[in-house]
C-alpha cells in the first residue's frame, strides 16, 4: 500500500467524530466525503471545543488520541517532511495533519498556501477517483518546492510559520533579521573582458572598496592579457602579469564598466560602494578603444585613484 493511502487511512479512522464513525470505519475506498472532513489545508473553522468534544467520547486509547490530535488545528510546516520519508515510514502521526497550512498568529500567511489549495482543487477535479489526491498533490507540491527552490523565495519559508520554532530568542531573531538584510547573501556578477574566451564571476560582497574589486579583477584576468593561460600559474608569473595588467587597466587600454538595474552601461567608480553593489548587474572590462568618449574620463579617474 502506498504511504499516502496509509496516511489517509489513518486519518479516516482518526477523523472520527462519534457521529460520523459509521461512515468512516471502512473508509479507504470511498473516502471522498471523509477527505472533505479532513482539515488538510487547515482552512476550515475546526475549533478546539469541537475536538475536545470528540475526545471525550473516545476512550483513552493512544492511537485514537493521537489521531484525533491530527484533526486539530496546528501551526506547522507545510510539506515539511523529506520526500524519502514517505516511502518507508508510516508515521503514527501523519505530519501533514500535524502541520496544516494555516495563518500563523503573526498573520504571516504563506502564499504557498494558496498555491497548494489551488493545486489541490485542480488535481481533485481532474481525478475523480482520487483516493490519495490531496496527499499526493501536497507531496508533489513539496517536491516541486524543493526542486524549484527559486519559487519559494517569494513565499515565507515554512520555518517561519510555526510559532516559536526554531526556538531562538526573539531578540536574536529580530537582530539577525535586520543585519541579514544588510548582509545580503553573496552577490555574484558576471565579468566579461573583451577578447577573453570566457567570462568569470566575482562576488562583490568579498570586496569593501573599488580598490579591492580592481585587485580581484586583476588577479582573475591576468592570464588573458599576457596570453599565458596556465591554470594557476607560477607565483612569479602572476606577479608579473598583475602589475602589467594594473598598468594596462590604469592606463588607457582598459576601462571597467558595469550594467546597472536599468540596463545602462556605466563607468565604475562614480557612486559610493554600497550603492554600486546594490545596482550592479554585471561587469565588463572594455578596451579603451571601444569606450570612446569614456576613455579620457577613465584615464583621469584612474589616475586620481592612483
Amino acid at each position, binding site marked *: 500500500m502506498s504511504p499516502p493511502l496509509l496516511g489517509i487511512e489513518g486519518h479516516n479512522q482518526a477523523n472520527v467524530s462519534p457521529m460520523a464513525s459509521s461512515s468512516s470505519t471502512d473508509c479507504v475506498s470511498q473516502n471522498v466525503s471523509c477527505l472533505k472532513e479532513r482539515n488538510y489545508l487547515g482552512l476550515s473553522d475546526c475549533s478546539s471545543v469541537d475536538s475536545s468534544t470528540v475526545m471525550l467520547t473516545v476512550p483513552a486509547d493512544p492511537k485514537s488520541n493521537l489521531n484525533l490530535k491530527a484533526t486539530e488545528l*496546528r501551526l506547522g510546516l507545510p510539506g515539511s517532511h523529506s520526500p524519502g520519508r514517505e516511502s518507508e515510514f508510516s508515521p503514527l502521526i501523519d505530519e501533514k495533519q500535524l502541520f496544516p497550512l494555516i495563518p500563523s498568529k503573526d498573520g504571516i500567511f504563506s502564499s504557498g498556501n494558496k498555491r497548494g489549495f489551488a493545486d489541490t482543487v485542480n488535481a481533485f477535479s481532474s481525478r475523480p477517483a482520487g483516493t490519495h489526491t490531496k496527499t499526493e498533490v501536497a507531496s508533489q507540491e513539496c517536491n516541486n518546492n524543493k526542486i524549484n527552490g527559486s519559487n519559494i523565495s517569494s513565499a515565507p519559508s515554512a520555518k517561519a510559520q510555526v510559532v516559536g520554532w526554531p*526556538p531562538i530568542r526573539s531578540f536574536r531573531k529580530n537582530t539577525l533579521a535586520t543585519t541579514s538584510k544588510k548582509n545580503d547573501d553573496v552577490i555574484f556578477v558576471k565579468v566579461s573582458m573583451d577578447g577573453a574566451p570566457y567570462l568569470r564571476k566575482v562576488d562583490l560582497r568579498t570586496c569593501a572598496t573599488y580598490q579591492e574589486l580592481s585587485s580581484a579583477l586583476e588577479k582573475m584576468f591576468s592570464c588573458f592579457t599576457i596570453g599565458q593561460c596556465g591554470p594557476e600559474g607560477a607565483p612569479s608569473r602572476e606577479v608579473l602579469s598583475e602589475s602589467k595588467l594594473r598598468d594596462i587597466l590604469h592606463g588607457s587600454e582598459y576601462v571597467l564598466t558595469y550594467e546597472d538595474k536599468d540596463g545602462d552601461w556605466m563607468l565604475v567608480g562614480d557612486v559610493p560602494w554600497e550603492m554600486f553593489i546594490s545596482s550592479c548587474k554585471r561587469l565588463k572590462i572594455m578596451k579603451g578603444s571601444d569606450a570612446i568618449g569614456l576613455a579620457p574620463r577613465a584615464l583621469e579617474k584612474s589616475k586620481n585613484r592612483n
Partner: protein
Amino acid sequence: MCLFRDMMSYFPEEVLEHVFDFLTSHRDRNAVSLVCKSWYSLERFSREKVFIGNCYAVNPERLIARFPRVRSLTLKGKPHFADFNLVPHDWGGDVYPWIEAMTKNGINLEELRLKRMLVSDESLELLAKSFPNFKSLVLVSCEGFTTDGLAAIASNCRFLRELDLQENEVDDRKGHWLSCFPDSCTSLVSLNFACLKGEVNVAALERLVARCHNLRSLRVNHAVPLEALQKILVKAPQINDLGTGSFVHDPDSETSKKMKNTLENCKSVRSLSGFLDVNPHCLPAVYPICTDLTSLNLSYAPGIYSNELIKLICHCKKLERLWILDTIGDKGLGAVASTCKELQELRVFPSDLYGADNAAAVTEEGLVSISAGCPKLNSLLYFCQQMTNAALITVAKNCPNFIRFRLCTLNPVIPDAVTNLPLDEGFGAIVQSCKGLKRLSVSGRLTDQVFLYIGMYAEQLEMLSIAFAGDSDKGMLYVLNGCKKLKKLEIRDSPFGNAALLSDMGKYETMRSLWMSSCEVTYGACKTLAEKMPTLNVEIINEGEDQVEASSSPDARHRVEKMYLYRTLVGPRRDAPDFVWTL
C-alpha cells in the same frame, strides 16, 4: 546523634558563621539551613546572596523576613518558553514590588540580577535612588525599560561596578544616558550595552573608559564605529572581555592598521564578541588576540562567511567557549575540531530563518567531527538541518561529559536522515552515556521510546524541553516517574494528556515548574490538579483562538492551550492579568 548534638553546642555561633561564610553555593546553604533550628537561624542571618528561580514561588515580604541581610538578589520571571513568543508580554514578572519592598525595609541591596522579568523605568529609578551601595545590575532577556531608566542608574549609583545588559528589548529614547555617568564615577568594572539599538555619545564613552581604570569588560553596540572603538581601547589595554560594535572599515586604511596595533597591546583579552556589522576583511586585525582567547561569540555576525570564520578560528587554539552561526558549515566545524582542543561549550545558531532550505546549514557531520576532536565538550546547543541516530551514538561515545545537551532540528519532526527512523536511539545513547546530564532538549521525530530511555538513564536531569514528540501519555509518565531530580519540564505540541498530568501530582511539589502548551490536557484535569494540590499554582493562559469568555466557565473537556504550573509558598499571585487564570 547525642554525641553530635553535644559537640555542636560547643561551637559558638561566630565559629559556625565563619564556617558558613565559605559556603557560597545557594544549594549548599539551603541544605545547611535544614540541619536544625539553630543552623537555620544562623544561616539566614548570614546569607547575603539569594537566588529565586521563580519569582512567584515566594514574595518580597517572605524574602526579607527570612534573609534580612540580603545584599544580592537573583530573580527569574517568565517561563523559559516566553523567549520564543509563547507567553504574552504582560504575563507578569514585574520586579517593582521587590524593589519597593526592599526599599521600605532598609535592605542594603548591592546586586540585582534579573532574567525574563518586566523592568520599568520607574523600577530602575527607584532602584538607583534607594540603595546607596548599589554595585551591580545584570538584566538578561528583560523588557519594559528605556534608556531613561539607564540614565537614572548612571546618574545615581555612585559606586556602580557592573551594568550588564544581555539581549534585552530596550526602547531607545535617544537620550544621552552614557553622559549621565558623573565625572566622579571611576568604579566601573563591567559595561555591556551591546543590545541597545540607538546612538550613544561616543566621546562620553571614551572619557568614561579613560577614568575607569578597573574596567575589565566592555561590550559596545553597533552604533560605536571601529575608529571610536580603537580610540577607546587605547585607554583600556587592561581589558579582558571585549565586545566590538560595528567592525567595518577599509582594511587598508590607517584606522584599520591602528586598530591592529591597539589590539596587539590588549594582551589580556580572553573573551571576544560583537561584530554586529562586519567587513570580513577587517578581521585579521583581531588575529593577535586570538591566541589567548577562551571565549568567542560570533553569533550575531551573519556577514562572516565560512572561509573567513575558519581563518579566524585557526588562530584560537585555547578556545573553551564558541558561539557561532551555522554559516560555518560542517567543514568549518571540522576546522574547529582540529584547532580547539580545549573546547567545552559550543553553540551553533541558525542564520537563515526566513529563506528556503539552507544549503549552508550544519548537519550531523559537523557535530560528529566536533565530538571526535573536542573531548572536553560538556555543553551544546546545536541547530541543524538534519540528524541521524548513528551520529548521536558516536557523539555519546566520544563525549560522555555532557552536562547540557540541546539539539534542535530546524524541522521539528524530521526523522533520521539516513534510515528514516525516529531519533529515539540517538538520544537514548546520549542519556545513557552522559551520566552527569543536567539539561536536555530533544527534537526530531521521536516516539515514547525516547522518554523511556530518558526516564531510565537520565538520573541527574534537572531540565527537559520537549517539542512535537511522543505518541501517548506513556512518554510523559516515563519521564515523571524516572527522572528523580527533575526541576523544570516544558512541553509543547505533544500528545500528552490528563492521565499523564494527574498520575503523580505530588511530583510537582518536587519540581520548580511544568509548562504544557498545545498538548492534550483539559480544563477539567487542570482544575482537579489545582484543587488537590494547594501548594501549586496552576495557571491557564487564555488568549488567541482559544479564548473563552471570562464569564462562562469553560467546559471541563475543553482542551487547554497553555498551562503553566509551579510550586509556591504564597498562593495565587495577585498581579495576574485578565487572560491568566489561576485555578
